[in-house]
Structures are given as C-alpha cells and as structure tokens.
C-alpha cells in the first residue's frame, strides 16, 4: 500500500546519460509508485549533447510524474543538483545519479532519513585506484577538514543522498557560486548520517590538479582557517624580523668592519618578500571570492520545463474563433476593445 503521508522527490542530474536513462527511470518509477502515493521525478539536464532531450520526450509519454528541467548549457553537476533541489516540492528529496546508484534502496533510505537526523549521505564501498602519494595527500586533506575546518567531509562520499525538506530549504539559501553540495550538506549544522553502498560503476576520478583545485576551493569556501594560518605566520616572521633588526643594530654598535652586510640584507629582503607575496596571494583568493559573490548573478538559467504527458495550462484569450480546423485558420476577432 503506497504511503500517502509524505511526498518524495527524486532529483536526477543528467549529462549525456541517454544510454542508461530509460531503464533507470523505469526502475525508479516502479520503486516510487509502489512505495508512495505522491512523488515526482525531476530530471535536470545539464546541457546534454547526445540527444537526451529527444529521448526524454518519449520517456515523458511513457513514465508518469516526471518533470524535465533543461538547463541552457553545461553548468556542472553541483549546479544541476541545486536547480533540482530548488524546484523540488517533496518532504524528502533523494538525489541519485542515473545508472550508478542503486535506486531500489530508495524507500529504505527515506525511512532511515525520516527516523534519523534529516540528512543521509551515501558512501561508496568501492575504493578508487590512485597512487600512494595522492592517496596520502587526500587522507591528509580530509583529516585537515575534520580537525582544522571542523566538518566531516568523507573521502568516499557520493552524490547519492536523502535530504529532509528542512535541509533542502537550508541548502537552497546558500547562493555560493562555488558549490560543493557534499560539503554543504555536512557544514550546514545538521547532524549527518551515512550509509554504505556499492555503486554499479564509478566514474574515474578527476585529475590530480583538478582535485588540488577542489581542495583549495573547499578549504577557502568553508573556513577562514588558511587565512588565519598565514596571517599568524606573517606575524611570527615579522617578530623574527624585529629580532633580526635588533641583531643588526647590535652588530653595528659593537663591530668595526660592518661595511659588507650584503648577504644578510639580501637574505632578509628575499625572505620578507616571499612571505609578503604569500599573504597577498591568500588575500587575493578572498578578494576574488568577494568579487564573485557581489556580482550576484543567478546561479543557473532554465531553458525549459516539461511534464509527463500533461500540458501546461494556457491562459484564456478573448478571441472568437469561427473555425477550428487547423488547415484554414480563418477565424476572426470580435470586438478588440
């Protein structure tokens, strides 16, 4: 007996997923229809170029309760999920990736989320192939997040998750341009539950430099810790500099032959400039962020919204038609004000 007490939304970000989309939606629809009286499936097309839009056209006729949101171009999966979350109406919203996440587990996960804290995140049990060096760095970064930045950003976190309405409302208020939903969900302050599962495939991870960029952005977007760290370092070095200056003065007062101070002077100069520029670099990161946020552009632009087999209401027009055959559209307008 389908549950009538709650509405469940399923958000599926898609990008060139035409090969797996049909069977995934069929399974998702079966699971949802057998468990819930009220649900919706929101497809957010992140600018697919493989004919997904055309495929969706036929899927809308075959599978009920789908809403298709076509973004105008590729904005990235994080933005696509954000668009889906923002338009979702469910009391619980499930995010799942087509062809990867085991959608059959949805009812069980929604139940867990309902009985738990309201945020339930998936953890992949499949380890990723990577070099010992990058593995070590990654572990260090996640430890840094936990210890210094104060949030539990799990290494193997995926996009498969269940969010309560309250959590969705909180996330959609965050208007950051750099969106790391995996991070938002754990930094919002809600208590987070995790569940392990085995994705059917796992796309190869990003390259080392991309991951480094992500790490820097995550660290900067979520904490002032790095800035605090370099400003402290700067203070320390300034202190050392004062001591060094004292040392130079003492040498000047008590030594006779001080004409050749070239080595120490240039050492001091290079040292100072090095740290000065380091500090400037960090400041620039923040200033860049402030600039982007103050531009306040919409996060995404939606090109279309289509619904399962029903057509949008057309507003009424006053015209009088004298014939409705499409062949000869010879209708005249009465009045006209």
């Amino acid at each position, binding site marked *: 007996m389908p549950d009538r007490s709650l*509405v469940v939304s399923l958000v599926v970000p898609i990008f060139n997923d035409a090969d797996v989309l049909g069977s995934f939606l069929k399974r998702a629809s079966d699971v949802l229809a057998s468990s819930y009286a009220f649900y919706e499936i929101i497809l957010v097309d992140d600018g697919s170029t493989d004919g997904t839009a055309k495929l969706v056209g036929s899927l809308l006729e075959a599978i009920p309760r789908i809403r298709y949101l076509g973004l105008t171009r590729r904005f990235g999966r994080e933005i696509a999920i954000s668009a889906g979350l923002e338009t979702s*109406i469910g009391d619980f919203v499930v995010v799942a990736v087509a062809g990867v996440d085991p959608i059959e587990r949805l009812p069980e996960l929604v139940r867990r989320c309902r009985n738990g804290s309201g945020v339930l995140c998936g953890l992949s049990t499949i380890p990723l192939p990577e070099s010992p060096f990058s593995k070590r760095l990654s572990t260090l970064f996640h430890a840094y997040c936990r210890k210094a930045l104060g949030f539990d950003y799990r290494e193997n976190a995926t996009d498969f998750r269940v969010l309560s309405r309250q959590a969705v409302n909180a996330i*959609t208020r965050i208007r950051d341009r750099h969106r790391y939903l995996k991070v938002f969900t754990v930094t919002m302050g809600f208590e987070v539950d995790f569940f392990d599962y085995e994705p059917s495939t796992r796309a190869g991870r990003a390259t080392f430099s991309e991951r480094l960029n992500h790490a820097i952005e995550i660290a900067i977007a979520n904490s002032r810790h790095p800035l605090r760290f370099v400003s402290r370092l700067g203070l320390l070095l300034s202190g050392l500099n004062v001591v060094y200056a004292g040392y130079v003065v003492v040498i000047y007062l008590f030594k006779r032959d001080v004409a050749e101070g070239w080595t120490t002077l240039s050492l001091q100069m290079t040292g100072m400039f090095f740290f000065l520029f380091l500090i400037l670099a960090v400041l620039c990161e923040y200033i860049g962020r402030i600039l982007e946020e103050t531009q306040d552009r919409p996060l995404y632009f939606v090109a279309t919204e289509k619904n399962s087999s029903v*057509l949008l209401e057309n*507003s009424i*027009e006053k015209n009088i*038609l004298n014939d*409705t055959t499409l062949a000869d559209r010879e209708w005249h307008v009465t009045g006209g004000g």
Partner: protein
Amino acid sequence: MSPVTQVADAIIIGGGFFGAYLALLLKARGLNPVILEREPDLLLRASYNNQARVHNGYHYPRSLMTAVRSRINFPRFIEDFPDCVFEGFEKYYAVGRVLGKVTAGQFELFMQRVGAPLTPAPDRVRKLFNFHLIDEVWTAREIAFDAGKLRQVMRARLASADIPIFLGTNADRLHTSDDTKLVIESSGPDGAQLWRTSHVFNCTYSGLNRIRRSSGLPLIPLKHEFTEMALVRPPEALAGISVTVMCGPFFSLMPFPDRGLWTLSHVRYTPHHSWRDDASSPDPYEHLERTPKVTNGPLMIRDAARFMPEIANCRQEDSLWEIKTVLPQSELDDGRPILFQRDSHIPGLISIMGGKLDNIYDIPQELDAIGILS
C-alpha cells in the same frame, strides 16, 4: 409509436452559463428558444466547477487584446449580476522568479497600459511570501462570483422570460429534413422526442463533439484536459487573502463562495492528463465519471508552500473535478479563444464554446453577424 414532433425557433443544447444566457439573448431578439440539458439542473458542469474568477485583465500579461477585453467586460458582469458578485477577500498578484514568463517590470508596465489598478502589497502580506522565489507582489482588484447564486439568478431569469427547459434530456442525434429544417432527436424523462427547428446552438463545451459524432458530422478539433482543483480551508494567517502567482508553472488560491471553501489550482498539477478529440477518443463526460479520482492536492499544497509557506497549513477538504476543453489553436498562441462556428455542412447548426464567463458579452455581435438581429 413514433415520438411526437415539436417545433421551436431555436434549440439550445446545453444549459450551462453560455446556453442559458444565449437563450435570454435569443428571446430578446424575438425567437422562442428551448433548452435541452443533460444534467438534472442548469450550470452544473464547467460553469460551476471552475475558479469562480471574474477576470479583470491581470491574467493575460502577454496578450494586450485579451487583457483590454477583460477590463471592458469586468464592469459589465458586475452590473449584470450584482447579487452573484463575491468581494469579501483581498486579491494579490505575484510574479515568480524562476521559470516565469514575465518579469515584475513587464507585469507592472503592462497593467499600467491596460489601466488595471496595481499597487505594491502591504508589508503584512509581503511577509507571507518567500522572496527567493517571488519577484514582486501587488494588490489588485478582482472579484469572484458565487456559482450557486449565479445558477439561481439564471433559473429565475429564464423562468420570467418563459423559456422552456428540459432537464435530464440528452440531444442524441441531429439531421436535416427535406425543407432544410433541422431535426433533433432527444431522450429524457418525457421519453424520446423530435424537435423541428431552424437554429441549433450547441453550447455543450466539453460535449461539443458528442452529437456531431452520433450524427456523423466531422468533429471539431478539441483538446480535453482532465482537471482537478483542490478545495481547501486556508489557515488563519491567510484569512481573506487570495493569491495568483504569474506566469508559468505556478498556482492560484481563490475563494469558492458556494462551498465556503477556497480553490487551489496549480498549472502543473491541475491538469492530470489530456487528449485530443478524435474518432477513437473517449466521451469526455463518461471518461470523467469512470476515471478513478486520485487527488494531486498534496502536491499542489507543497509546491505552493514553497512560494508562500503558510499554504502548507491549508487543509484539503475536497476537490472539484471537471473536463476542461480548449481549442488546439490556444496551444500555439497561448490564448483560450471562444468558438462561434457556423457549420459548413448544416448552416443552422452553430457551435459555441466560451473560455470564461464574461466572453458572453462578445456573443451579441456574432448573432448580428449571422442575421439574428434585435
């Protein structure tokens, strides 16, 4: 025993608002019309099961003509049916941010052009909206009508005009006789009857093609929608506040005076499914009766609550189910024009379909055009 043949100047099939009003217009022009209504009373179908809104132009921010026309017909309706007008509410129009087809600026400018009054909504009302999703909110002037009172008024007017009404009577078939008169076969509580007449006005809205199908006439291309409006009781915080969010997949909360409740309709969830009328398509009324009514109310409430959180506290008590019929053109030009079509095979047969009540004031000119003069 063959049925008795009766004679009438004009037969009106369908005693909805359009059919009933048309009967009064014809009577005033010296004809003696007869109304055949399939239901047990007048104004029971689409004239009753709708938003009960008297349009004042706000609904058409993309169609200047329609908006202007609504502005002209608005005071006429109020003057014509003062007892049916329901004004006990405040009307607010809002424009949505994402997926909207108009912006706040365009809406404001447009209403200025057509002279529809629009002032910024007071703060106590603005507080009810989520401005992440809503661009702007205005106070507007719009009224609702009481569908039950409208039925009483029309019944009384038809009685004083001495127009015969046959309730529970279905117009089964239509054909022409040798002397170019039209003959209608009907069945009802009085048994089978034959009607000889020179004019037949088909005012059956969704049922426009029923008699055409049974009489072997070509079908009018129509699109039917199986629609639901949730009947809700709004919370105290929304008492007397009616809201329409334009212009995309949004919603409208309007009073429905006859039931003492409010209708919540949603562009995405009100139409459950739709189909084109063709030889194989189901009869709309039978389809409405047969199809299990699984409400979309919780979906409407949840989506509307994103824009106006208080709507989450609306209690759904019932739903209004009806077939809404539109002409295929309206999908192209985003209008819902009314149809006034003289049949090309049988000139005495006129098909009329109105999109909204006040379109009735466009009908007299059409009667002039076909030679039924006052």
